[in-house]
Each structure stands twice: as C-alpha cells, then as structure tokens.
C-alpha cells in the first residue's frame, strides 16, 4: 500500500520562545476527510499553516504525495494541488468575484474553459452568477464563505485544508457549507478540516484528532470520537 497523501510526523513549530506545535503526528489517506479539533490557541491554525508552508517548522516533517515539503515555497505547494482556505476566508476583497475565481482557475487550468468552471460554480451556488462583477469585499460574510468554497470547485485541489469554514455563518449557511464539503468528499478530495462545530464535523469526517496545547491528545474515527462523551465534555467543558 502506498504512503498516505498527507503524512505529518513529529511536527514542531515555535513563535520565538513560544512552542505552538509540539510534535504533531497525523496522516490523511487519499480521499479521506480528517478533522482536527481543539480549543482556541491549541494550535489548529498553526498546524494548517505549517502544512501549507506558510510557517517554518522547527522540527519534524510534512510529506505530501510522498515528497517532503521542506523548503518548497508555499505558493508552489498550492500549485501542486494543495488548497489552504484560511480562517477569515482569504478572499481578496478588492478583486471582483469573477477575478477571485479566476485566480483559482489560473492556478491549475483544467481542460475545460474558465467559463465551464464558472458553470459548475453556478450550479452549486446560483447566487454567484448575480455577484460575479461585484467586489468580493462587498459580499456578506456568508457569500464570502461561498466564494471561498467556489474557489475550491474551480481549483479542484487534491488536498484541501479548511480552517473553520463555519465561522460566523448562520445555521443555514453552515449546512450549505458542509453540504459542499461533503460533495468534495464524495468526489474523492482529501480534506483536512479544522472546526469548532464538533458534531457536524465529526459526523462527516473519517478521522478525527483532538489537539491541545500543540499536541495530539486523542484520535479516532469520526464516529468513535462523536460517541465518546468524555471527548466531547473534555472539549466543550460540559454539555
């Protein structure tokens, strides 16, 4: 059996003297959805940023498709099939919706035309066709989140890193966002998701890891973790 698509081994990251990640080891097989759960400041976002090489690691290794990513510039990783959707969405506010999508398309132009890619987006998010010429910054929070996911539709990454996709969304929008992620999942995309919305996330993730103070403290299949009240209470305090 070949190596999993994403293998993180003993990853350490420090901000100056502060150790944000202290030896994280996890992996995601191709087509798997892996959830990383943890409180604020537990290092989830740092983990994603380290995987996408936005942060330098002080120790450990990250392998994507069998190749160590050490020293590879972040933008090149993105070109090779990784898409990192940061917390706070990462849309470029002063670019139009169309241009935002175009950026994603230019990364990895497929055989189909940009217009065809847009059609795929409209099929999923009909509202996007109305917003196409608008500046992304003028969209509502929910629409911006749609745009972020729409970018993934156009971009078709092999490995998707998503940081808190439900942040600040209304419940309806949260459902919508997860529906799209589920679609990605069925299409065979590998997804690493960081979320606060524990139930929703674990109910659709294959694997889950609980991060605490930069270390993995528990892991298991999504269903296992979800069934374990100790984990939930540990995470949410009490519930």
């Amino acid at each position, binding site marked *: 059996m070949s190596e999993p698509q994403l293998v993180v081994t003993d990853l350490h990251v420090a901000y100056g003297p502060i150790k944000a990640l202290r030896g994280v080891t996890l992996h995601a097989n191709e087509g798997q959805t892996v959830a990383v759960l943890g409180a604020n400041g537990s290092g989830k976002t740092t983990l994603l940023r380290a995987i996408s090489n936005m942060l330098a690691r002080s120790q450990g290794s990250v392998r994507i498709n069998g190749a160590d990513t050490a020293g590879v510039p972040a*933008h*090149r990783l993105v070109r090779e099939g990784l898409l*990192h959707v940061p917390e706070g969405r990462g849309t470029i506010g*002063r670019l139009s919706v169309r*241009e935002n999508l*175009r*950026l994603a398309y230019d990364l990895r132009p497929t055989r189909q035309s940009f217009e065809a890619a847009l059609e795929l987006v409209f099929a999923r998010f009909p509202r996007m066709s109305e917003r196409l010429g608008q500046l992304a910054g003028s969209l509502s929070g929910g629409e911006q989140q749609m745009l972020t996911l729409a970018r993934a539709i156009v971009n078709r990454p092999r490995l998707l890193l998503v940081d808190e996709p439900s942040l600040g969304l209304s419940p309806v929008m949260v459902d919508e966002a997860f529906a799209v992620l589920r679609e990605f999942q069925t299409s065979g995309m590998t997804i690493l998701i960081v979320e606060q919305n524990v139930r929703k996330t674990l109910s659709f993730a294959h694997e889950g890891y609980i991060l605490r103070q930069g270390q993995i403290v528990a892991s298991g299949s999504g269903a296992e973790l979800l069934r374990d009240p100790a984990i939930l209470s540990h995470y949410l305090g009490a519930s």
Partner: protein
Amino acid sequence: MIAEQIVNGVVLGSMYALVALGFTLVFGVLDKLNFALSELFMLGGFVVIASVGLGAPLWLAGILVLVVCGLLGLVVEFVSFRKFTSADAQVTAALSSLAVGLIMIDLVQKTWGGEPVSVPVPIEWRRANVAFFGMQIQVMKIVILAVTLVLMGVLHWLISRTAMGRNIRAVAESPTFATLLGIDVKRVNQQTFFIASALAGAGGLMFSLRNGIASSDIGFTFGLKALAIMAIGGMGDLRGAVLGGILVGVIESLAIQFGFGKLGEIIVWALMILVLLARPGGLFGAAHTTEQRA
C-alpha cells in the same frame, strides 16, 4: 493665457502622475516608500543620452529607458526591500532606498558631471507649435500627454485585466492570502518594482524630451513632490495618483501665472497637509482607521 497654463498644468501633472503611480504601486503592494524612484526618474533622461550616444535611434532609446529603469528597479528591490519585510521596517527600507538613490546620483555625476546635459532631440520636434483655440501649444506637450495617457492606459489594462495585474492586486491586499492562492509573492514584488521603475523612468524620459536636458539633481525634489501627490490622491490608489498629479500640476502652473512662484514647494506640501487633515486617507483612498486593528 490661463487656459494655456491649465493645459500646461495637465501635461506637467501627467509627468508627476507617472512617478506618483510608481510610488503608489510599490506602496500598495509593500506598504513602503521607494525613494529610489525619484532617481530612476532622474536617470530616465540620462539613459536616453547614453543610448543615443551609443547610436540608438530615439524610439529605441525610449524603450531602453523603460527596460533599463525597470531592471534597476529590480536591483533596488533586491538591495533595499527584499530583506525588510516586516511592517516596522518601513523606515529602514525607505532610508535604504534613499541611499541607493544617492549612489545613483553620484554615479551620474561621475559620468556626466553635475550640470544639466543636453538631450539629443531634434530642436524642430521640440519647437513645433500648434494654435488651438487661441492657445499656443507645443506638439511635444501633446505627444507627452498622449504617451503618458497610453502608458496609463497600458498600466490600467495590466493591473485590471491581466493575470499579472490580478496577482499584483491580490498581493497588495494580502500577501498571505495571495500565497495561499498560489501566487509567488516575491515575483509579484519584482514585477511591481519593474513596472513602477519603468514608469518613473518614462516620467524622466518625458521630462527630458520636454525640457531638452537631463540633470542629476532634478530627481529628489520632483520625487518628493510625487510622494506628496500620492498622499493627496490616496496611497495605493492609481486613480488618485493620476488625478492628484494633474491637480497639483494645474495648481502650480496657475500659482506661477498669478505671481506666487516664490512659494514654490509650499504649494504642494500645504495642499497635502490640508488634504490629509481633512481626509486622512487622501482624496481617493479609504480612510485608514485604527479600529480595524483593535
């Protein structure tokens, strides 16, 4: 007379605008001031002199100006900006680029001396005049305006229509997000410096064609004025740089006509301070408030 001054102000303003555009491009992308642009503006004329001296026809010399100044811009990026990435390195980078500018001045003076040098443009070109609604306007001014407008049009097209422009705008807003979208920020920075420097060089080219001379000490004050104009228009705003440049050009021309020539530098700086006090983000820039950071 006044109409003629206004027309002249627009032409002068368009030269200011070219340099201000360079400043605002760099500032938009890096949030830093590139003082060396002033001296690249100064170099524009000397590149013409050098290339004509080497036997190049004037049209080729014009293209060489863009290329040489653009390439020098890459040097400036490497020396003064590559290492100073953090936000509090603003002053360090600015001073470093200023020092690069000082070196450029010195090298020009070593080569051509400190006094103005004639630019080899046929005098007939420079002297051709047309009458226009009772105004006497030099053809050269019209050419300059036309070339400037074309350059601005090309810039507008580059920035708003091409993939490179999209990337530049994306990096300007957030280098982090841009990287996450697969954009090579370093390359975008270089592209920005190349374009900005070529624009400043083009400004210098226009200036030297217009005045028939190139001078080693013209860059600094002209560049500072362009900086003020950038602030008047709104930093990082291309439209602001153009309109701000033309506004200042026209005001300066009229001030001289009405006998306020003695005030010189005061005009543009006082205008800038007034604008900034009334609208801290400049005429066209978004108001920068501290709240977003909190």
